């Protein structure tokens, strides 16, 4: 199997790209996509660590996969809700750019 450190570097790269997307983009849909990128990076990290730690003590690779499954499920719920909010926002304000949604700012 490929060394764990490579998976971690990859995971770090994807996470950082996602972070940049969240911070530097205006479109709410794209921010959501970037969050999905970050969650995927976390999943890679978890599963890689679990696969490499297999047989270490009582650890099995399913422990890591289980957390990944929960993350995927929560991500699905999150995307459904967030996109509903984005659609609502678009109907009310005719924009999905987050810096124009400043109603709560003042």
């Amino acid at each position, binding site marked *: *199997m*490929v*060394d764990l*450190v490579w998976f*971690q*570097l*990859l995971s*770090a*790269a*994807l*996470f*950082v*790209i*996602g*972070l*940049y997307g969240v*911070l*530097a*983009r205006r*479109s709410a*849909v*794209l921010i959501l*996509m970037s969050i*999905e*990128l970050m969650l*995927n990076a976390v*999943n*890679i990290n978890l*599963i*890689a660590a*679990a*696969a490499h730690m*297999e*047989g*270490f003590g*009582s650890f*099995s*690779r*399913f*422990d890591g*996969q*289980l957390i*990944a*499954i929960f993350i*995927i499920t929560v991500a*699905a*719920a*999150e*995307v*459904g*809700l967030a*996109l*509903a909010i984005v*659609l*609502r926002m*678009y*109907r009310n304000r005719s*924009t999905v*750019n987050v*810096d124009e949604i400043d109603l709560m700012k003042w």
Partner: protein
Amino acid sequence: MLFQDVVFWLLTVVAVGSALGVVLIRDLFRAALLLVAVFVAVGGYFVLLNAEFLAVVQVLIYAGAISVLIIFAVMLTRDVQQGNPPNRLQIPAVALAALLLAALVTVAVDTQWSFLPEGERQSVELVQTAAVSDISPETLEQAGAAGESAAQGVGLADLLIGRFVLPFEAVSVLLLAALIGALALVRPRPAPQDARASGAESASESAGAGAAGSEAD
């Protein structure tokens, strides 16, 4: 092994390249398609890591469902002509991301990650492969007893409805709540008849749901 290394680096080119495309490309629709490429590549990593079930779930849920939702949102919000403009925080965002990347790389490289002696590593890998394919018991016996518990021990489903049954149920309740919440959010509400006339003006000023509902109709 060479084959797995080649696959890993090919997947890395696809994943990181597409991920960069997602955050840099102006066309939102293409960004969503590149996101699908990232999801599929991540599924490929899961196969490399002996997590076939996760790989299939990744493709089924992320590439098949979540990305479809995202593409629907891209289409329905019709902001594609305007594209995907960066905001004023461009430079701080790059700086922060670079800082975090540096920190993560330092931690990942500096830490001692080997958990097992090299000899045991091999046999564990063989047992892992055996758990997902039909290897004869003789081959398994040759693998030694180091990782035997991993193959014959508890599986994913045993954990899910055994030790982790509480989070499992909590997640299912969460899914139900999200389902109902999403429905309640996007459902056009029946507006009172008189609000219809002033709906267009008031909707742009207030986020009042009743007026907006009439506009959406």
